């Protein structure tokens, strides 16, 4: 699994490549430590190259959201495949996260 990050105006886009599972989710957590430290306010996680997220990956994303909420940061999940969206839905996390596609990615208002 790899993550690359780019800034688009005031939005931080983190693109994950590969599966987010028990082996890789500690790396996702570590990667986001910096984003949280810098108090990035508008963050998008791009899942277009993710096939599978297990419950450790989902829990890691929940923890990131919790920490971002403390300083008023907003987090969006973008471009989820049907399978990955299904994994969010099983645990009702589709209701917790802002899940977006296309242009909505840029709309943080």
């Amino acid at each position, binding site marked *: 699994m790899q993550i690359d990050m780019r800034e688009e105006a005031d939005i931080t886009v983190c693109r994950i490549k590969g599966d987010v599972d*028990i082996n890789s*989710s500690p790396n996702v957590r570590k990667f986001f430590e910096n984003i949280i430290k810098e108090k990035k306010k508008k963050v998008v996680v791009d899942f277009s190259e993710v096939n599978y997220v297990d419950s*450790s990956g989902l829990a890691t994303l929940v923890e990131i959201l919790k920490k971002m909420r403390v300083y008023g940061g907003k987090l969006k999940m973008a471009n989820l495949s049907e399978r990955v969206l299904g994994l969010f839905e*099983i*645990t009702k996390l589709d209701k917790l996260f802002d899940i977006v596609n296309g242009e909505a990615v840029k709309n943080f208002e």
Partner: protein
Amino acid sequence: MNKFDAEKDEVVIEVKDLVRKFGDRVVLNGINIKIRKGEIFVIMGGSGCGKSTLLRHIIGNLKPTSGQIFLMGKDIASAEEAALNEIRKKIGMSFQSSALFDSMTVGENVSLPLREHTKLNKNVIEIMVKMKLELVGLRGFEDLLPSEISGGMKKRVGLARAIAMDPQIVFYDEPTAGLDPIMSSVIDKLIVDLSNKLSMTSVVVTHDMKSVMAIADRIAMLYEGRVLEIGTPDEIKNSKNPLVKQFINGSFDGPISFFQEKEDYLDQLTG
């Protein structure tokens, strides 16, 4: 219609010509079973038919006298302990007795495999525990001790622990034993729900006929260490095999004998 197609579906467990003897006694006598990915496969049979022994072979706890067992493509009968442990991380096991640690809270019991086998952060594990307990309908119970919850709830905690590591296959040993009919139905529904939602393969060992018919995609009927028949619930229900029929109907009369011959008994007393 059967939702599986034997030709195209992936086999995740294959038992080939499995024989197991304890001393002179043959407990498993040439078992052949293929279990497909995503199905709920029930191993059914009366007490002492060898079904729990078969389960213990499939999960690698017992070694066969002869034959092979492939679990997710690995021959586990000949696997070393280290390789077995790696495979075991991908399977979940729900025990008959729930097997919870009395001194640990519900949450600690569910998180145990995560704390032992992963490097996940404790905050992440805490969130995972909440997610797993939600899946088994026990949200908010994490701080209670096993002694403070009912038998049915304990079974559900055992289930939450079995799925803690997101296993590909979950094994259930007599999941409804000792439960009242309503709680049995709750557990049955949970097994079906979890299996569907999490796309897991489920292998259930039971003699609870009501449960078998409610959950199984396919059933293997075991008798005296042999597979009598494998089929869908409908196929098993309509079986012409008198042994299967007797078991399905729970009748006293039939080819399955409950007593040894009179002479044997008298011989034993006087011998």
